[in-house]
């Protein structure tokens, strides 16, 4: 309040009253925003305050405010907690694997789909390809479990045809991660390709004509016209993806994993979930989550800053 008054005093009288008149005239616009802002304050800003229990010995009886501070004990514990370190390692490992294997897939999908002449075929394959995107991981897990099931699954059927024994893939430490990667690709490939297909559609046809005049064949055009044209978009998407490297796929893993594969599949988010909401160590789990959020924010903001500098238009 004080600062507003001071500002009003230092500004030229006319300008201030003009702004004030404008605000009064537009007061119903502020009124419109009021309820959304109150809702946002309650459900987003109050939990930000709740994060301070990461620095306290939280007891629900005393509440967030009155619980005693504990001198960063949770954070000290964090870095000697084997389970956390394992989760951190798994998070980065799974995420990097997804970036290396899943990230390029939609780009290849888009470039290849663009080579198909029939508009109808294109449309139908594209529509089919992003159907799984609209399903939750709860639903898709039910399907994944059936596909890999030792009792009914098609994959184990093929294995038994060749004389092998059925494998319980989802309880197997070596096969669980590949399943995560493949099913993630299966779900998001078509959806991820949309943005690249739109970019390809906006390429100037003159570029292709010029390349043809120079005697470029189809592969030459794909590699020397299409690919460079979508490269700026690829770079933006790549930096954004790197910015969320600590999100290894909470929904997917929480619905697919089981104790037998915790060793390779437990990520930070699932660890927060179990230690916080299943074992009720609210304060410690909040500390784990806070650590992840802080690192995540730094990564995302840097990603945005890099994009802003490189392309002169950031994401926001």
């Amino acid at each position, binding site marked *: 309040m004080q600062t507003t008054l001071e500002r009003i005093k230092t500004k030229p009288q006319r300008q201030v009253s003009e702004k004030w008149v404008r605000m009064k005239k537009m007061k119903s616009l502020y009124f*419109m925003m009021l309820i959304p802002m109150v809702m946002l304050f309650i459900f987003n800003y109050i939990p930000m305050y709740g994060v301070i229990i990461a620095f306290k010995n939280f007891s629900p009886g005393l509440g967030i405010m009155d619980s005693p501070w504990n001198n960063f004990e949770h954070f000290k514990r964090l870095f000697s907690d084997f389970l956390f370190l394992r989760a951190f390692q798994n998070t980065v490992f799974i995420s990097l694997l997804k970036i290396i294997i899943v990230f390029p897939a939609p780009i290849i999908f888009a470039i290849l789909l663009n080579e198909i002449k029939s508009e109808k075929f294109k449309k139908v394959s594209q529509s089919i390809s*992003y159907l799984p995107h609209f399903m939750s991981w709860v639903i898709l897990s*039910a399907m994944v479990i059936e596909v890999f099931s030792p009792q009914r699954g098609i994959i184990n059927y093929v294995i038994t045809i060749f004389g092998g024994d059925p494998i319980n893939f989802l309880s197997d430490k070596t096969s669980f991660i590949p399943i995560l990667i493949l099913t993630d690709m299966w779900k998001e490939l078509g959806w991820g390709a949309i943005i690249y297909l739109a970019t390809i559609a906006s390429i100037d046809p003159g570029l292709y004509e010029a390349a043809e005049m120079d005697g470029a064949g189809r592969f030459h055009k794909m590699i020397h016209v299409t690919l460079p044209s979508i490269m700026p978009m690829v770079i933006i998407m790549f930096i954004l993806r790197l910015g969320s490297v600590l999100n290894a796929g909470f929904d997917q893993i929480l619905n697919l994993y089981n104790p037998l594969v915790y060793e390779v599949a437990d990520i930070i988010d699932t660890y927060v979930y179990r230690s916080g909401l299943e074992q009720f160590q609210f304060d410690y789990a909040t500390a784990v989550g806070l650590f992840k959020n802080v690192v995540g924010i730094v990564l995302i903001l840097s990603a945005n800053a890099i994009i802003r500098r490189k392309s002169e238009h950031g994401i926001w």
Partner: protein
Amino acid sequence: MEVKTRKKISLFNILNITGFVLFSILVIYPFWQTIVLSFSDAESASSLGVNLWPDQWITDAYKFMFSNDNIGIAYLNTIIRTVAGTFLIVSFTILAAYPLSKKELPYRNVFTIFFLIAMFFSGGMIPDYLLIKNLGLIDNSLSLILPSAVNVFFIIIMRNYFMTIDKGLEESALIDGANYFTILTKIIIPVSKPVIATVALWAAVYHWNEWFHALVYIQDDSKTVLQIVVRDMLTAMDLSNNQNAQVGGGGMASSELLLSNVRAATVMISIGPIVLIYPFVQKYFIKGIMIGSLKG
């Protein structure tokens, strides 16, 4: 030389088209398998094989499912939640996006930042849970629709769209003495139907699919949603999976039915609405991405 390149190209075409056909089959197969399983009996469902067609179409799994009170209630809850939640999201998105789209609004940037901060920072899983608990919203259906009612991403998309609307109409209405609420309902909303439809569809799919809040905030079976019913069956399945011998109903289903049959049927009814409207509305989803990628 000529002939050679043409041959190469057509080979590429064949491979490319085959590739996309195979990929489409790969995408559809798990869905088809679920349909077949939901109409199969326990015997054919417990044998390994490529089940592309049931031995006979049996609706027992669906009958069992609909005789189970919990599933019916969960379906109803999901519908109510989706309708109410979508209505809230769309209303709040419009109410916040319209003022934020006005360049001449004093302190607009301050308000924009207030919204943007919430997009980048959050308390996280546990503080969210404690808030809901302190508000007394555990086992209250409001906990499923209130925390997600303000979606900053949607607000930005809609604000960007509003900013492209021609100011002329609005200004003449203002001169005629109309207030901003009238302008919003009579001028802005009618010309923004495409973006409102897009946001509404996104919100509806979100609420239909959302399961984590329901998992954490709702314990009461009479308030649960379909996704949680399916999820509970996943965990039940896991247990029987570990003891390879008994895949049987485990108390969930009658003896001739496997849990898997019932689960497949439940999956079918929970994805049914999405799959049915999908061919008609998918272009709006795509439109949403395109509007969203406009720089504001």
